[in-house]
């Protein structure tokens, strides 16, 4: 049987690189929880269980040219797009050097212009029309870039999802709407969020193709996002892709999920942990011999340790720098 990635025309080293990025994503995420639970960082929002969707999608894009508008769980997306572990540690510790916000925003609020990671906020779904606007601008300039915007299934109930998707549909803009359906919006299960069975049922209402796919398989996600990107570049407009995942952690470090879901349910979901299944895949494909794996884990551990140490010791922004950058030309600080 031909291996799936071969069928999709993905090179071996790319698959390895996908696995590597996924592993970094997970190990970094795990470390964040440790740092939080040991009182070193005040807040964590986590993407465990959603890495396959993130990595599969990001790798299907042109990571030198396309834009991503990630949401708060998207370590995988931003790492694939060039943000470093150190950058993310700096954000976790809220240090001045944090490229996302200089320590102004909570972790998970990504943004890095040089990597075309578009600055995001907390109110969910506001990024959806932004992705559409970026696509519009790029199309005006006859560029071939695509915007990928991600969001949770709960967030697909916001008006901005509807308005943005319809706008993209009318103007046939190169946008990929990627829903990471992890079954919950904080405590509210999908059955109380969505009147439709699937988020992708909404695509027809915006004149775009919609797909619901296995979000635990990065290659499956790659395939659909790649096709969507190709369509977009051919001028055939936007696509909606819903990746079915599961949020393996509580909503954030402030949440206790035992009040609204059972331990069994979470345990069962862990059986299809995307990291495990993808690891099996790359192993079976012969791309991850044991010693290479060991080495990989080790180098990631080192990278995370070094980043952590750097970030922990890095300086905070000066208190009064809170006055900077209200408007252009306020480098000297706004008037008090």
């Amino acid at each position, binding site marked *: 049987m031909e291996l799936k990635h071969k069928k999709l025309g993905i090179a071996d080293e790319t698959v390895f690189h996908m696995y590597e990025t996924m592993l970094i994503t997970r190990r970094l995420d795990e470390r964040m929880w440790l740092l939080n639970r040991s009182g070193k960082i*005040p*807040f964590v929002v986590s993407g465990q269980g959603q890495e396959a969707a993130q990595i599969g999608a990001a790798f299907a894009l042109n990571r030198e040219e396309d834009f991503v508008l990630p949401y708060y769980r998207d370590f995988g997306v931003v790492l694939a797009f060039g943000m470093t572990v150190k950058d993310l540690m700096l954000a976790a510790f*809220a*240090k*001045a050097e944090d490229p996302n*916000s*200089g*320590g*102004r*925003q*909570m972790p998970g*609020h990504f943004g890095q212009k040089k990597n075309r990671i578009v600055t995001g*906020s*907390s*109110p*969910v779904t506001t990024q959806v029309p932004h992705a559409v606007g970026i696509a519009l601008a790029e199309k005006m300039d006859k560029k071939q870039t695509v915007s990928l915007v991600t969001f949770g299934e*709960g*967030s697909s*109930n*916001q*008006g*901005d999802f509807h308005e943005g998707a319809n706008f993209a549909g009318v103007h046939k803009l190169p946008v990929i709407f990627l829903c990471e359906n992890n079954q919950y*919006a*904080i*405590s*509210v299960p999908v059955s*109380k*969020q*969505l009147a439709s069975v699937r988020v992708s049922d909404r695509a027809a209402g915006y004149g775009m193709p919609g797909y619901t796919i296995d979000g635990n398989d990065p290659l499956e996600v790659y395939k659909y996002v790649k096709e969507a990107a190709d369509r977009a570049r051919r001028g055939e407009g936007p696509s909606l892709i819903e990746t079915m995942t599961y949020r393996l952690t509580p909503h954030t470090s*402030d*949440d206790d999920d035992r*009040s*609204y879901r059972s331990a069994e349910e979470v345990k069962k979901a862990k059986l299809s942990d995307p990291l495990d299944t993808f690891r099996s895949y790359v192993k079976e494909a012969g791309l991850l011999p044991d010693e290479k794996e060991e080495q990989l884990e080790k180098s990631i551990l080192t990278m995370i340790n070094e980043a952590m140490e750097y970030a922990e010791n890095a300086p*905070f*922004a*000066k*208190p*009064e*720098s*809170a*006055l900077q950058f*209200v408007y252009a030309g306020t480098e000297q600080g*706004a*008037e*008090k």
Partner: protein
Amino acid sequence: MPVISYIDAVKMALREEMERDRNVFILGEDVGKKGGVFKATEGLYEQFGEERVLDTPLAESAIAGVAIGAAMVGKRPVAEMQFADFIMPAVNQIISEAARIRYRSNNDWSCPLVVRAPYGGGIHGALYHSQSVEAVFANQPGLKIVMPSTPYDVKGLLKAAIRDEDPVLFFEHKKAYRSIKGDVPEADYVLPIGKADVKRKGTDITVITYGLCVHFALGAAEKLAAEGIETEVVDLRTVYPLDKQAIIESASKTGKVLLITEDNKEGSIISEVAAIIAEHCLFDLDAPIQRLAGPDVPAMPYALPMEKYFMMNPEKVEKAMRELAEF
């Protein structure tokens, strides 16, 4: 009288009102099974069932809009916005609809709705979990905005808001939720919406403020009192429409006024307070009207040093009071 926390006063008021009137119901994100992200509605889902404690889809304009619809036909919805910062998608429903329903229908329809939302900083919430949003709404006749400072006021004012015939925005300071405790009668009582409350009488200077800052002012007032400076602390409680009379009375009495808000300064609640005083008590003033507020930057940063720099605190308040007293 039991001593309870600010958030327990919220919960107590909600429970008692739901027991009193079967038309009262709660809707919002995570308010049901989870009992709210701050636990303000804890236990209510169990007591009143999911019909009266609705976990809604993640859509604030619908939360407000659905609540408005229900209110128009006789229900008493209490809508929760998970954070005040996330009320913004509901602005159209609140301003264009709730605030105008009575007026535009010439009193045929009304909208007895309460929107609760935790606001305020100092909890490491960064730009979008720390904001004071009252100034956005404090220019809309038809709305009332209540911002209580103590558990006692929370209970009495939240009950009054639920019984009010018009839409009320009820902003609860999230840093006060667990840090502020006080006596709260178990009995039923309401406090008047639209009335300020003199939390401390004094003759030398007047501090007018609301929310968490009331506590900073009261603390500083004690210190100043030890030095013979008597501060009057006026708690606005309702920040829109303002209690002009109470403002004018206290300002005229001491002639030295310090206004405090945790919000950005320009265009804030205290700007209107200053304007009222300047209009009505100019010749009673012995000092310029002082305003102490957050800096005019979009919102409070996450990193602790910057957050502290922005956030109001007892030291800043005491310093400003002292300066005014010495003027």
